């Protein structure tokens, strides 16, 4: 049966073994929720024998995901963190797809860019840009929030972190989109187009690297200068440099972009919550992690078993691929009360899986939260209402959970 034929709105109309939650169309059509709910109830550690990406296991419950995250010895990240394998002749490498100890030293080479003291310095920069972007959106007429606000803001931020030529910043968005939308990951971008884009990215960044080698690393704190001067990263080969660039570009771009859009959408679906935060903007810091939980901008991370592993009576065999479905664990009713409700003042809002846990936990999680906090502080100062005028378009991907457009009309204060 083809992938499309197996796709129905009713997750109970097919047998358990035919369920394939990695089908990108499920996410593009927002149809995945029922399938995950069924798996959590009936088969929380689920084997899918046939998919676009070959056979794989799905882990769908919050605490099971945590168990696997905590055991990087038994569940390796080597070879990549998406279900689709990289082509033999074009393999990018980066620290999220590495195990200890190499992962640890490469990660540490760039961690400082998102260290708390650096974030404090970035805050006024982000705020002034958010202010400018929001001041320029039209009021009283329809426009696309994704392009005008979410993409613009995150791309400007990324350009700052890399100290990338500001006028060419839309290239960063383009490379980020190309990197994640390839056919090998179930997306629409043909492989030659994806490769050409990534090679262009490498070329531009290689020129920047050659320039940054001459910068004083004690004065410059952009990511490229950091990598070019750190003994653990300065000897990277081109595909490793490219891999780490893509990791930082996608990690710093796609995820926050889609959470910014998601927040607007959720507050439309839950107008009582919008009323609550409008009345009391001091709730924004609690609302932000709830937006990130509810959006879950990356639906899963992949691991590969390095040994046979027993969990809930199933045996994951050595060499098997395992998808930890954050998007499902974040709706696990055994851990999160009323998980399908968007509630901006939860008691323990940061207890969600969207950033992962363990040694691969998102390095930029505090930066992401800060960006969202600033955006919402500035939105609420300006707008009385942001009305979503039709259902958003969604990304054709089971990995990046995002929006292609979100048409809104805003009303000023």
């Amino acid at each position: 049966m083809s992938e499309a034929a197996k796709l129905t709105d009713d997750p109970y109309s097919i047998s358990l073994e035919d369920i394939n939650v990695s089908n990108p169309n499920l996410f593009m059509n927002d149809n995945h929720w029922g399938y995950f709910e069924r798996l959590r109830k009936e088969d929380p550690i689920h084997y899918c024998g046939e998919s676009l990406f070959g056979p794989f296991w799905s882990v769908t419950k919050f605490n099971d995901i945590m168990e696997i995250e905590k055991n990087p010895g038994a569940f390796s990240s080597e070879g990549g963190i998406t279900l689709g394998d990289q082509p033999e002749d074009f393999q990018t490498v980066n620290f999220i797809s590495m195990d200890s100890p190499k992962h640890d030293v490469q990660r540490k080479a760039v961690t400082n860019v998102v260290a708390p003291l650096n974030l404090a310095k970035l805050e006024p920069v982000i705020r002034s840009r958010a202010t400018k972007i929001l001041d320029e959106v039209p009021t009283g007429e329809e426009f696309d929030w994704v392009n005008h606000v979410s993409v613009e803001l995150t791309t400007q931020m990324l350009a700052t972190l890399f100290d990338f030529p500001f006028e060419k910043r839309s290239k960063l968005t383009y490379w980020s989109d190309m990197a994640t939308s390839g056919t090998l990951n179930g997306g629409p971008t043909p492989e030659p187009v994806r490769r050409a884009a990534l090679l262009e990215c490498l070329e531009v960044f290689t020129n920047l690297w050659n320039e940054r080698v001459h910068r004083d690393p004690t004065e410059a704190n952009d990511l490229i200068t950091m990598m070019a001067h750190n003994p653990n990263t300065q000897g990277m080969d081109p595909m490793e440099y490219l891999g780490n660039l893509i990791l930082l570009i996608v990690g710093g771009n796609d995820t926050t972009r889609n959470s910014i859009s998601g927040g607007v959408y959720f507050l439309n679906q839950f107008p009582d919550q919008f009323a609550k935060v409008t009345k009391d903007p001091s709730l924004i810091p609690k609302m932000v992690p709830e937006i990130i939980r509810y959006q879950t901008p990356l639906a899963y991370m992949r691991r590969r078993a390095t040994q046979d592993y027993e969990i809930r009576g199933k045996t994951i065999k050595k060499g098997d691929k395992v998808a930890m479905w954050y998007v499902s664990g974040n709706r696990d009713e055994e851990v999160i009360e009323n998980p399908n409700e968007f509630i901006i003042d939860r008691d323990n809002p940061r207890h969600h899986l969207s950033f992962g846990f363990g040694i691969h936990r998102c390095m930029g999680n505090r930066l992401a939260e800060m960006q969202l906090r600033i955006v919402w502080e500035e939105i609420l100062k300006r707008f009385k209402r942001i009305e979503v005028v039709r259902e958003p378009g969604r990304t054709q991907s089971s990995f990046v959970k995002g929006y292609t457009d979100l048409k809104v009309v805003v009303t000023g204060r």
Partner: protein
Amino acid sequence: MPQVKFIEFNGTEHNIDANNGDSIMVTATSNLVPGIDADCGGECSCATCHVLVGSEWQAKLKPVNDTEESMLDLNPDRSAESRLSCQIIMSDHLDGIVINLPEFQY
């Protein structure tokens, strides 16, 4: 009940009666001592309950295990005094322990 003295980065002290069997992290968060985030809820997998413990008290603690080591290792501000407070379980022999809170959690 054993006591814990938490000292915030700005010097503010909090003397808290702890329950035996509770972690230092739980002791802090359930008594609203600021400075500990504990995103993962005590699973030793986020490193946002980082605290500093002087050598005289470190000597009374169980040594850092592999999981705690791997999480602490990711923190650029790690020092010889660094511990994850979810991994320190209170008991009478830790009565009076002094816990210094870092300026930030990652």
